[in-house]
């Protein structure tokens, strides 16, 4: 499950963490996903699509939003 796609529903620009509604998961979002610092905060606009790199990690702390489009 290395790369997942989803839609941004909320962004914490202080801690740089995103809340994402992953594709296929209409009822539930995943929150506290770290976001690449290479993405300007201004680009993290809700309803935009994004890519989450899970890195095959069990720990949600290791997931990273790597792209927003």
């Amino acid at each position: 499950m290395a790369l997942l796609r989803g839609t941004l529903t909320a962004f914490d620009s202080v801690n740089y963490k995103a809340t994402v509604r992953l594709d296929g998961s209409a009822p539930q979002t995943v929150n506290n996903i770290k976001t690449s610092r290479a993405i300007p905060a201004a680009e993290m606009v809700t309803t935009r699509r994004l890519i989450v790199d899970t890195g095959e990690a069990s720990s949600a702390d290791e997931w990273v939003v790597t792209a927003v489009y």
Partner: protein
Amino acid sequence: MALPVSPSLTVHQKQAARRPAVSLTASLTRSGVQLLPFERLYTGSEPDGPHALALAADGSLIRARNQSGTLYLSRVSAPSSSSVWNTWSNLTPCTAAAGVALAARPGEVLLAYVDSAASTRILLRTSTDNGSSWSAPTSIVTEASAIGSLALAFNPFGDACLFYTLGTSTTLKRLRRTSGVWAASGANWSRSASVASLTGISALHDGADFILTITGTEVTTGNPRAWAAFMGDLLFPANAWSTLAAIAEADAASSITFAAPGIAYSGSYRASFVRKEAGSVAENRVYTSNTPQLGSANGSWFEPAPHQATGTAGLALAAASSAVWGTTPAGVWYAPLAAGQDLSSRLIRCSLRITPASTRATIELDDADGVIAAGNYAAVIPGATLTLAPGYASGAAGATENGVVFMLIIDRVTSAVRRGRRLARIEASGAWELAQRWHAPQAWQSANGALARSAIFARFAIRAGLSPSSAGIPYAPSADWTGNKPPFVVPAGESAASLMARLLAPMPELVRPEAGLQVVGTSASDAATGAYGAAGQHPIAELELSAEAWQRNWTRLAGSGRYADTFDPAQVYVAGPRFGVLSDATAVDNSQAANWAAAILRKQQMLTPRGQLVAPFDCARQLLDVVTVTDGDLAAAGDYRVIGLGMEYSRGPRPRFDSILVLGGK
């Protein structure tokens, strides 16, 4: 300790002459819970609206529905597939869109609805002839605001309780009838602070307490929920409310809400609710769920699954001894509780192989009478459960005794003719395969420090319809398994097997999938719980011992700000380095990282085959047991862990009843 078996069985199964007695039964169950193959008996055009269902003591099916402020009733005596379902009688006006409730017990049926003249007043009618006729209405309670949903239930002593909400507020009141007298006013529940709104309620009495399904939204977050809860009556303190157990969840920002719950009890608690999707593609679909066998209503529930029923009014449920009924205003569904079939006398051959990650069985049955081929065995179909209990006629007067029992799921049923003999062949799998087929329909997340690995494992095992458990001494799970609480995310679409494998990866635990998913702790110091080969021990028919290199002999656990390596020198020197790495950021200290790296390497050592032992079937043997094997011919004397458990059974000219044990490292 070893699986306990009787002394007579222990002696008998070691003898040269043995009397196998293998029991095989098929049932339309999942982990002991009866499956409900609903069949739609009626498709009408009645409009959606609040409705209720009750089964009277004479077996009549009584339905009530609120159609835009008119209360209609239907009574079908001796309900069946040929019944007429579209005959309704106009009973009385009522408040449009307000709830309706029915409850039945021998000699009495109660009907509650909201007065058409006052949306704040609940009226009650009584029938003493199983719904054929009704009394005049009596007002039993008037509130300060409009009534929302209604639910009614009797306890075994004839006392009743009416539950009702005030609009969609957080108020849920109970109004008890004790010794025939209704309380003067309703009393609010103690869980108002747990919710932000209530959209529906349903209730039953399970012989001990009142059980409710409730839909609404969670306090603070506003997250939509379908819940189960109970109010004490005969077992728990009277009128005390349990916490709310989530059956279905969504988040407030989604376009999903829940409404119109139903509840029944048939071997387990059965819930229904409407899942309303307001986004694209919009849909109001009934979902159903149930608790595990012997599960509590406010514990864990199976993953809700879609039902054929649609609409906003939900599916009312009622359970009889032989069936479960479900109704909407325009639909009637019937799910018979199919009896199981004892296939023991038909069993010709059975080959079973179980590992910590797989179960495969091939079973051949005599079908000379064509019953199986004709489909006359309702429980011999893909998806049904086979219970395989190998044993011997070793008890008093040849009574059957057995030990280990296997629960298998039918994957395929094939009818065949071979040399003029009609046969049926069943291919079956087990718990891991069921876990592989279950995929999360939505994301789920647990914060760091919230839930232990064991709790997350159990949650998803139950969601997948499995029975999780933990092995006892000497194979009890480790402190890390029950105490480590990682942050954990399950994306939509991930299988239960995959997420369980992630939980298990850095742990010393393995899984025994014989009859559910049993988590087994492993340690190099585990004592043997069985012995083969030496005098007085279980005899060995065949033994092979082998040596092969491990798949991985150098493992790294990459934790948080650290990593730990461990390796086996002897393996590395000869086979060369076979490196593997596992990342787990929840390893937050050096000893934890080192221990987990060692656990990963030890699994390699355990799961590398070292041989195979064939013996007369040993009813006490389970997967992952440690056994002592002694064989003078191969100069074998040592402990091995059973990493593969098999059974070969056949009757006929070449009878066989053997255990096949794949031996791994201890």
